[in-house]
């Protein structure tokens, strides 16, 4: 197919698509006709419809035209109703631009087909000049039949021999005076009020690149430089006897340790001990002795040389249960309990059919832990908590500790969530709507620090899925959802049709056609 496209100034496109150019000989002259035309000229029609007599529009080459006269008429039948625009075209200096006549006549035929509007240009002396259509002969597809179109405005006859104009095809037109003006330019919008607001409706879409590749997001690396590495603090894993020995040193009257600490920390020697806590991890390190500040003691311990510890909780596979849409949101709900963090809702759409893993990074100095929830080895969710059970060393520590526990407990009361995610209502029947709108209970609240270490120590996934009621051989009675294009004769069994073009059926009446369409859409058995 040959296509011609003109880009217009207002981002609209004038597009012509012709069928095959057919050559033939009439009398002794070689002629051409076009066997099928797809003529999408709405933009041009709109353009002229917006203009009133006396108004002008400017072309993008500086030329402009004025509407001199608008008339309507009919060339013999409703199919041939037309609107006639007489225009004068001026060049960019204000001189009349075309040489043969001062008036150009543009005739727009309406409603030949839903795609075809015939436009041509003729001056008032009948001298040939052409806008977009052929002033000669078209064969177009009109309501499924090939229809011959002639130039009615010329002399009102259908006779081929009366046609003396060349073809509209640009490459075959020798006198391009008006093409140059009319085809390559388009006027600016003329503001007459009542304009459409918003972007114009254009042809497009369905042209995405379908790129569904995804990047694996790894767990971030542990910092290479830690407080322990810097020597600013030291961490020791103590034994019960070691702690007892430390207490004896701190609280005895003639403690050499305490005396030395007083030299380093005049105001409060206990500030040298930053924290004493229980961490639910099996920490390892070198055997050694406790050193506080620069004072070495004889108290035995395990010297910890890593501030950040990784905890791998393993993986579980999230497999399909029903093997249908009920396995996804909003019909299946997931809640993941993360130790030291609390409950976290997960989207079934994001994890169904994948491997779910949980890993933690723990800071043993502060007790802060980050939980990473990985889906197919890519971090998808994160949450933070604290896994350190603080042990008070002084009365002030204990006071702070207990008050913080009270505050934490108040916020940790499990609450009913305001309802699970509810899908689009029309997608599912009332029974499912009720299920999907059930409140989704949160199974744990904020879980951190002292309360966290007393709870379950491994992640637990709670799955809440709807229970389908599926009668035996349901598919034979009602089929399952389908959205495929298929030849009816190739189908077997129960079928409901969404879309079909009922055409080329031998001898069918209109009422039969309606009845047949109704049967096809409400359900039938093919064979």
């Amino acid at each position, binding site marked *: 197919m040959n296509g011609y496209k003109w880009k217009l100034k207002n981002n609209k496109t004038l597009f012509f698509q012709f069928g095959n150019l057919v050559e033939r000989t009439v009398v002794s002259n070689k002629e051409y006709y076009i066997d099928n035309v797809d003529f999408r000229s709405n933009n041009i029609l709109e353009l002229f419809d917006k203009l009133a007599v006396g108004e002008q529009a400017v072309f993008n080459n500086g030329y402009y035209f004025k509407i001199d006269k608008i008339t309507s008429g009919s060339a013999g039948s409703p199919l041939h109703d037309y609107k006639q625009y007489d225009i004068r075209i001026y060049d960019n200096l204000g001189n009349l631009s075309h040489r043969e006549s001062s008036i150009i006549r543009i005739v727009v035929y309406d409603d030949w087909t839903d795609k075809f509007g015939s436009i041509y240009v003729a001056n008032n002396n009948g001298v040939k000049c052409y806008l977009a259509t052929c002033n000669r002969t078209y064969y177009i597809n009109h309501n499924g039949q090939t229809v011959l179109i002639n130039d009615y405005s010329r002399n009102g006859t259908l006779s081929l021999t009366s046609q003396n104009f060349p073809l509209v095809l640009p490459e075959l037109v020798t006198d391009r005076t008006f093409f140059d003006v009319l085809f390559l330019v388009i006027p600016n919008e003329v503001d007459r009020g009542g304009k459409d607001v918003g972007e114009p409706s254009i042809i497009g879409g369905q042209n995405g690149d379908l790129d569904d590749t995804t990047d694996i997001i790894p767990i971030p690396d542990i910092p290479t430089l830690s407080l322990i590495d810097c020597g600013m603090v030291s961490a020791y894993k*103590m034994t019960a006897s070691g702690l007892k020995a430390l207490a004896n040193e701190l609280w005895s009257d003639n403690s050499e340790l305490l005396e030395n600490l007083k030299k380093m920390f005049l105001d409060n020697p206990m500030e040298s001990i930053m924290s004493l806590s229980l961490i639910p991890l099996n920490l390892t390190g070198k055997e050694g002795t406790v050193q506080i500040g620069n004072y070495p003691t004889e108290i035995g311990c395990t010297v910890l040389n890593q501030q950040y510890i990784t905890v791998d909780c393993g993986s579980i596979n999230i497999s399909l249960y029903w093997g249908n849409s009920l396995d996804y949101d909003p019909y299946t709900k997931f809640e993941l309990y993360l130790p030291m963090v609390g409950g976290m809702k997960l989207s079934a759409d994001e994890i169904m059919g994948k491997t779910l893993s949980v890993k933690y990074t723990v800071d043993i100095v502060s007790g802060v832990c980050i939980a990473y929830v990985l889906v197919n080895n890519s971090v998808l969710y994160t949450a933070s908590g604290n896994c350190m059970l603080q042990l008070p060393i002084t009365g002030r520590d204990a006071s702070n500790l207990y008050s913080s526990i009270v505050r934490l407990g108040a916020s940790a009361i499990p609450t009913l969530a305001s309802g699970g995610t509810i899908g689009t209502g029309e997608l599912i029947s009332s029974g499912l709507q009720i299920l999907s709108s059930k409140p989704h209970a949160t199974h744990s609240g904020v879980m951190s620090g002292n309360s966290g270490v007393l709870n379950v120590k*491994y992640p*637990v*996934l*709670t799955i809440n899925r709807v229970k389908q009621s599926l009668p035996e051989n349901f598919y034979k009675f009602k089929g*399952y959802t389908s959205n*495929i294009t298929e030849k009816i004769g190739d189908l*077997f069994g129960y079928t409901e049709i969404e879309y*079909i073009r009922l055409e080329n059926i031998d001898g069918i009446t209109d009422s039969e056609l309606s009845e047949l369409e109704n049967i096809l859409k409400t359900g039938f058995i093919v064979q």
Partner: protein
Amino acid sequence: MQIIFYKNKSPKNKAVKELDQLFVRSNVILKDDCNMLNPSLQLRLSNTELDKLYKNANYFYITEFRRYYFMTDTVFHNGFVEINGHVDVLRTYYNRGLSELYCVTRRQENRYNTYLNDSEFLCYNSPIVVQKAFPSGFSSGYSPVLIVSGGA
């Protein structure tokens, strides 16, 4: 006008029907004021044909109309039988172009995808709730950790 009487053993909404031919009658008269889609036939039948008609016939084909019909009603009139019918558009046009047409299916018995949302699915009000524990986690024991300034 030639009529072929059948016993239709298939569901009404099946395109390719399983038909047992019972008997054929020619020169059948159409009742006045009936149309091609809902014909009304008047015919005199033998006892054997009557027996077949009442026991089995539920479907007929009018050769001249090139259409299949469901038998909707049968009425006796002084030795004549009046048979009313309604055209079976599915069977009539299946082999006259319908089977060659392409369509977009909404539901299908064999060519389906249940991951498309299905408004026909029903569910019990009691959901299935299960818990899956991860294989490992934090230690059940505790490490007492002392953090001090300075040190080693």
